């Protein structure tokens, strides 16, 4: 099986996916949830049939000087009200007014209130965490591959594969945001971090085989060596992927709730991408690098 000969098709496939999703994201902006922007989500449930209409709820909020409330109702009959940051005092007031207006018991299902300054810091710290983790992993890979020629390349390629997966995740988020009103929240962050971890794991398994084979098959041309290593680890990649994905698909189907569904889909796509990128991105780039193929990219091959 010659996988590597088609490497530019794989690169093109990834690029199309990434560019289309990122374009959507660029046009519509990153849909940040209140975890990052600050604000309040208030989910309440009224007694059967006593849910007040939207304008009543809006006017209760306006009485408390909150005029940016947005109201959506859920499948289970509860009402989600999003607004700017609500203090606990205002919430108690609103809750009391809701009870009076609807003449019903009001059950608080969820109340998330995040101050505006917190969100920005979360984003910053998350970026730092990802950067620090990547640098450490590159150093680790370089150290671990120190006996192989060009150990540095393996580290860089692992990071490129990881960046590919991050781009794919943002791309799928862009698509989800456009079609299903997805939002980037702290669960999304968890999914992103997981994918990064597993992208590394997958890449290392493939690279490990290259490392092993390069000791045994010294005479083999580098491209054939890498291809051989990919084919050898393919069965493992498929089986592991099938199982972890299977796990998550089920979780996705059964967890229900909109937030977790989003989490599961992002994880699912991210993990698939992690396996895909280790085989079809990281390893081929190693070969491109070895052969210095960029010298022939822009038509100069004709002169060579």
């Amino acid at each position, binding site marked *: 099986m010659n996988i590597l000969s088609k490497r530019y098709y794989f690169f093109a496939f990834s690029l199309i996916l990434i560019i289309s999703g990122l374009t959507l994201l660029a046009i519509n902006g990153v849909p940040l949830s209140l975890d990052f922007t600050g604000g309040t989500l208030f989910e309440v449930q009224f007694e059967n049939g006593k849910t007040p209409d939207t304008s009543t709820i809006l006017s209760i909020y306006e009485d408390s000087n909150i005029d940016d409330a947005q109201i959506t109702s859920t499948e289970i009959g509860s009402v989600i009200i999003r607004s700017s940051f609500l*203090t*606990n005092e205002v919430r*108690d007031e609103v809750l009391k007014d809701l009870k009076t207006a609807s003449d019903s018991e009001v059950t*608080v*299902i*969820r*109340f*998330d*209130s*995040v*101050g505006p*300054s*917190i969100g920005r*810091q*979360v984003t910053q*710290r*998350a970026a*730092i*965490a990802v950067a*620090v*983790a990547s640098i450490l*992993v590159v150093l*680790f*890979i370089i150290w*671990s591959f120190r006996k192989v020629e060009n150990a540095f390349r393996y580290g860089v390629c692992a990071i490129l594969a990881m960046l590919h997966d991050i781009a794919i995740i943002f791309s799928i988020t862009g698509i989800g945001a456009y079609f299903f009103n997805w939002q980037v929240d*702290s669960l999304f*962050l*968890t999914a992103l*971090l*997981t994918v*990064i*971890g*597993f992208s*590394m*794991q997958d890449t*290392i*398994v493939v690279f*490990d*085989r290259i*490392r*092993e084979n390069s000791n045994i098959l010294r005479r083999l041309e580098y491209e054939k060596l890498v291809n051989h290593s990919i084919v050898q*680890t393919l*069965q*493992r990649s498929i*089986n*592991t992927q*099938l*199982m*972890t994905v*299977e*796990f998550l698909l*089920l*979780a996705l*189907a*059964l*967890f*229900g*709730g909109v937030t*977790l569904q989003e989490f599961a889909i992002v*994880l699912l796509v991210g993990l698939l991408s992690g396996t895909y990128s280790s085989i079809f991105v990281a390893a081929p780039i190693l070969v491109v690098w070895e052969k210095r193929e960029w010298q022939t990219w822009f038509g100069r091959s004709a002169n060579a």
Partner: protein
Amino acid sequence: MIRNLTNRIILIVVVVALSLWIDLSREILIPNPFSNTNEALFSRDVEPRLGLDLQGGLQVLLEADIPADQTIDSEAMEVARQIVQQRTDALGVNENVITVAGDRRIVGEFPGLADTESVLATIQQTGLLEFVDTGDDLPEAGTILLTDYSPTGEPVTAGEGEKIYHTIFTGAEIDSISVSPNQFGGGYSINFALKSNGAQIFGQHTAANIGKILAITLDKQVISAPVINDAIIGGQGTITGDFTFEEANAFAIQLRYGSLPVPLKIVETRIIGPTLGADSLNKSLIAGGIGMIIVALFMIIYYRMPGIVAVLSILIYAAIAFAVFKWFHFTLTLPGIAGFMLSTGTALDSNILIFERMKEELRNGKTLNQAMDQGWTRAWSSIRDSNLAAIITSIILFWFGSSFGATIVKGFSLTLALGVIISLFTAIYVTRTILAIFIRSFKPQNYERWFGL
């Protein structure tokens, strides 16, 4: 070939037995055999702890209400944490966990809490009690007084037409406090006793200022403003106000545990209703269960005998991991469950790596024992490196989560890292031992049938 198979089996049986014991109990108790009373030699509570998202509850993020460029003493944050802990303990809530996150934040978690209002109110109040000399001015209860006492040490400046009063002493001088019903009429009053230093100041001040007003303020707000009738020697006093029992009690709690060294403001509140929590717990348990069954079926159909071994090994892995979580009182949250599921994926991956390697060696005509040895040695380097990379990532995430109070990320990385470490033990040690036992007992000849070659 495995030497010392018996030793290996004994170790595994002991570990599994201990894990199951912890898994199935609520408390580990070893009675003292030499004692006639029921004194315990050793006991540890291993009740499973569910996070807010699984049983509902309240989470608040408090931030020091001090300009961002000002550094805060880490000791002061710790004292503030303890005070928040004591205040909320006194409200009678269970399992409340208060932790310092980073250098200017405190996370408070109250699983299963229904009455969020009283907790939020209690936490937020600074609880700064002052005894203020207002001279001949008689402030009404509820007015805000400007005083010369400032917890941060910054000088207090008065605006146009405002007057700064002198604080004689603060709540820090209070030794003990109690609530009693008023002798006349309804309502409750608060009795306090001062420490010796405070008693002296109080005595001197009251002796020198008979006929003047002594205002008592909480967070600069006047609670009562009695006229000094006599010198009060001995440091005993009463704050008479028209308090209800709850008010008096909440007030007493604040005085008893002192004022916060740093003012705190609530920057994030999350309340999860109990039904949402229970729903998430059920769904994740069902998803985990069905996922496990499908994976087990796949492993057995595809890898045959080693597949059965892998399933046993994963079950042992789950038993150990759950026992570790319970023993160290880790709180299980939804992201924590996600981390655990993914580390289960890693555990499976290790098994798959080894079995694929074994099959390869068998196809190359190696004997069963050779293939087993080679399978493990050859797969080890990739299992080691990939798991180490996962552990490095989890450590960074854990640091990120705990320095920021992002409990989601913290729970996730903790279960992931622990799961990966445990999976190393089960894949390398347990799977191999069980497979060796199986091969000895069944002596498989037909590799196609037994190993799905």
